[in-house]
């Protein structure tokens, strides 16, 4: 997995609340098990009309936001499916960080597994960053995972919380399975004990 430390980039504003995984990547694209290539269909139904032409006023179709690396989104981003196509599509498009007041649990976890950083901030902070994002390509927002801060283009900084283990993995590009394997002894011991105590399971 790629390491994540600091990015500075254009942020696209998506103020809608409850953006669900079907909106992020409609289900007709869920058949693939490849992690790459889904970026063109990100937000498909909002981004293209039925003939496949771009809808000009959708944010990611605007020239300023075509290279956006950050999304600033409304509350409860990513509710819906547990399949990882939504984070895959976002990552494939080039999104590295998503800022919102809250995320759906499964989606939140899935972001980290795909090298993306979901950032939870209070409403007031998200409002400031949303306004900042609306300024277009001149406004670059900075996300620094090491110091756990997001900084708006005019220098306002907001501190965010992130789980220490998840931060460690993302900073170092570590893969979960490898890390868990180091604890194989504990798992084996647990398994043996459980087989005695709950043989029916």
């Amino acid at each position: 997995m790629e390491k994540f430390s600091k990015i500075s980039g254009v942020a696209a504003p998506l103020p809608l609340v409850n953006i669900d995984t079907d909106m992020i990547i409609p289900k007709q694209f869920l058949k693939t098990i490849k992690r790459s290539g889904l970026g063109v269909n990100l937000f498909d139904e909002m981004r293209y009309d039925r003939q496949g032409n771009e809808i000009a006023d959708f944010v990611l179709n605007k020239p300023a936001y075509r290279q956006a690396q950050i999304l600033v989104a409304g509350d409860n981003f990513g509710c819906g499916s547990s399949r990882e196509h939504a984070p895959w599509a976002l990552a494939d498009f080039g999104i590295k960080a998503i800022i919102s007041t809250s995320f759906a649990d499964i989606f939140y976890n899935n972001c980290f597994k795909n090298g993306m950083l979901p950032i939870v901030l209070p409403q007031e902070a998200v409002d400031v960053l949303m306004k900042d994002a609306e300024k277009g390509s001149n406004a670059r927002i900075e996300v620094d995972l090491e110091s756990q801060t997001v900084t708006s283009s005019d220098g306002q900084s907001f501190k965010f919380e992130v789980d220490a283990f998840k931060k460690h993995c993302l900073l170092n590009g570590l893969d979960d399975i490898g890390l868990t394997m180091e604890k194989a002894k504990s798992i084996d011991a647990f398994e043996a004990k459980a087989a005695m105590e709950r043989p029916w399971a």
Partner: protein
Amino acid sequence: MSPKTLYDKIWDAHVAHESEDGTCLLYIDRHLVHEYPVSDVRQGIVHIVGPEQGWTLPGMTVVCGDSHTATHGAFGSLAHGIGTSEVEHVLATQTLIQKKSKNMKVEITGKLRPGVTAKDITLSVIGATGTAGGTGYVIEYCGEAIRDLSMEGRMTVCNMAIEGGARAGLIAPDEKTFEYVKGRPHAPKGAAWEAALSYWQTLYTDEGAHFDKVITIKGEDIAPVVTWGTSPEDVLPITATVPAPESFKGGKVEAAQRSLDYMGLTAGQKLTDIEIDTVFIGSCTNGRIEDLRAAAEILKGKKIKVKRAMVVPGSGLVRAQAEEEGLAQIFIDAGFEWRLAGCSMCLAMNPDQLSEGERCASTSNRNFEGRQGYKGRTHLVSPAMAAAAAITGHLTDVREMM
């Protein structure tokens, strides 16, 4: 020992390793795979087939690469829907990396009124808490109205814990649970059954255990409900009217306006005036035998007024049982299509799709934009409410037909 919640007990019994920061490796007893082969009579939706086959047992940890895995919590098993990377992690290590969630208690007190079902409970809870209300929590549903539900009803309630944002839903196992599990193909037998049973009987929340959040709803206050918008939290009693976007706060104003435009509704319109084109009965929320019975009860001897209506049993066994009980004939006589088991119109991956603007009363769990077909409009309801709408051609208070 300090009192524990049901979640605490299952969690503690499965921690294989705990790091200093509280990150745990949670041992996984069962990894369910999504679909059975189509040729098998046991074929169907994993969240219906798993319990039928006795794969799901109280006190277990269960994972599956599908968000509605929460369903299995109805047995008092800790069931998580996981993504592809986590599936790979479970396959490689038999564990899941997890931090303990917070505990939420959702208590439904007293009795339900006639015409009110498990689906109305679970939708009403989401209506009360919002789709993000459960974020970071595992919910335990309890109270008299939950105890009174059948296992099928409890599965319906837990199924939609995920729409309420929760990591999992749980209901403490009781005699009904044990009765349901006993004799299933993969349930323990003989001495193993006795040992399992005495363990399962310890799986309840101790008196005085701590919950981080408590929600109490009176069973008598729950009415048959429908969704009017494109989020499962957009829930109202059938007797209500379409809300005005301005009546909401913050980002929800814009979302509500967008929902109304998408759904083709106007504020102030009576919900019972909304005309329905299509009715879908099925899905992992409401594709069980009891759901089909409830719908057939309303449909008996009647004809549908909607353009099309279909019943898709959740498994081959449900389908066979419904045929045996004569329910299939009631549906067919009423004008319903009687389908093979599966997910079907719940997610429109196959030709069972709504066309643009087509309006559906559906017993599934998601009313997201495009969920049942591009620009299709979904109203989530209980099976009985779906049947009522099929007969009248518009959203209808099922209590008037009982």
